[in-house]
């Protein structure tokens, strides 16, 4: 799988307002691909379309080698190869165990396998002691770790991260970043991350795309976009001039 996502003339509108217009985009497999941009630039809209949570108004979307028809069975098949960690790390009512096991239960995996996989993942993110705790009483950082374990439990080919460390402290963010790098390197999982944190993008990304007002302004290898931005809007954003 060379390109898990191919977008061609993708347009999304809310009423009359066009919030996203992507002419061409191919995302490489096995990399950490970061979507960078100011608030309201269309980052999350793009992520939600690729995660098959939002239907585009125009254009053609190709996910994991299949042209997306938005047909029920195809959606389920494709979604079962991806997972997502959102900004707020929403937790279902119930224990940490219930949350981490959710995706595996949906796939009707045996309880024995679920128990062992949940234990393994909670150990990995340092949350084994919280197995039976109420997931909604966890701190922001703990929730993010549980959300990451929950997303990894289903062995996704693609992992979406929507501002995964925006609500947590620096130490927890560093830990989350460590796991993200580990997952990408060990399992070759394609990671698509939305962030407006420049430093995080620079630390983690293999490739970066800069998006503004719903359009791709520039994309390329992580470091070069930071050192030699080709577009003045990207340069201004990197200088902190358009961070709003």
């Amino acid at each position, binding site marked *: 799988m060379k390109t898990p996502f191919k977008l061609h003339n993708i347009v999304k509108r809310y009423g009359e307002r066009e919030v996203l217009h992507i002419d061409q985009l191919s995302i490489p497999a096995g990399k950490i691909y970061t979507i960078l941009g100011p608030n309201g630039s269309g980052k999350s809209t793009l992520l939600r379309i690729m995660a098959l949570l939002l239907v585009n108004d125009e254009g053609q979307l190709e996910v994991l080698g299949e042209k997306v028809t938005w047909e029920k069975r195809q959606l*389920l098949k494709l*979604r079962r190869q991806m997972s997502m960690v959102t900004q*707020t790390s929403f937790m*279902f009512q119930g224990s940490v165990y219930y949350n981490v096991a959710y*995706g595996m239960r949906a*796939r009707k995996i045996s309880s024995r396998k679920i128990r062992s996989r949940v234990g393994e993942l909670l150990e990995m993110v340092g949350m084994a002691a919280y197995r039976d705790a109420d997931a909604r009483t966890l701190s922001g950082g703990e929730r993010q770790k549980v959300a990451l374990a929950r997303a990894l439990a289903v062995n996704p080919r693609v992992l979406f991260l929507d501002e995964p460390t925006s609500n947590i402290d620096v130490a927890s963010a560093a830990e989350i970043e460590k796991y993200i790098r580990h997952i990408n390197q060990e399992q070759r999982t394609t990671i698509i991350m939305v962030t407006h944190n420049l430093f995080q993008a620079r630390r983690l990304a293999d490739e970066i795309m800069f998006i503004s007002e719903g359009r791709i302004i520039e994309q390329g290898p992580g470091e070069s976009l930071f050192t030699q931005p080709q577009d003045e809007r990207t340069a201004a954003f990197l200088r902190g001039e358009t961070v709003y």
Partner: protein
Amino acid sequence: MEIIIQGLKEGFQLIWQMDAEIVDVTLLSLQVSLTALVLAALIGIPLGAALALRNFRGKHIILNTIYTLMGLPPVLAGLLVYLFLTSRGPLGQYELLFTPTAMVIAQVLLAAPIVCGLTARAVMALSQEVYDTAATLGASRRQASLTIMREARMGIVAALTTALGRVIAEVGAVMLVGGNIRWHTRVLTTSIVLETRMGNFSTAIAIGIILLVISFAINMLILSLEKRTFRYENTIQIT
């Protein structure tokens, strides 16, 4: 005040003595109201969930109609059922008027909009994140819908307890379609009306107390089930 104290004494006496007629009236009250509640839940929960989760033309008009029906006057509900079941009505051939079945039908008419409306509200109060999280973890539409219902369960239980409160205390509709026939369709609320009309105020209060005790016991049972089921439900801590 004396009447009330006398009523209290008589009430506990009636409960203690297990008077045959009072037992019959109490059991019929429970049978009618609980059957109506189960039927209202079977109709109202799926309908409320569907209304909350689907978008279609006319959805707001239907929701508005259901919210209006939540305040349907019991006498009007009784009258409608009466007109359908009377010998000249469209369902007259089934001879259901003045039977417990007619009373159940009238109470379903009162309880179903409450269950449906409050279920819809409980589901609509949830954020998009519930569905998104379930979907991105690979839940099918059915699995995601069940998860949404699970997340809304506190609101659904509240809908059921509100509906139960409405039907168990209801008098106008059951009086009209049941006829308050001794040993046949007499329930606790219609007994209170009868005793009051006969001037037996203390007996009326006594039966009222039995009604309250039953309602208290059922709600107690629901609360204890709630505590067991909603082990992870958060309570707002005010310090």
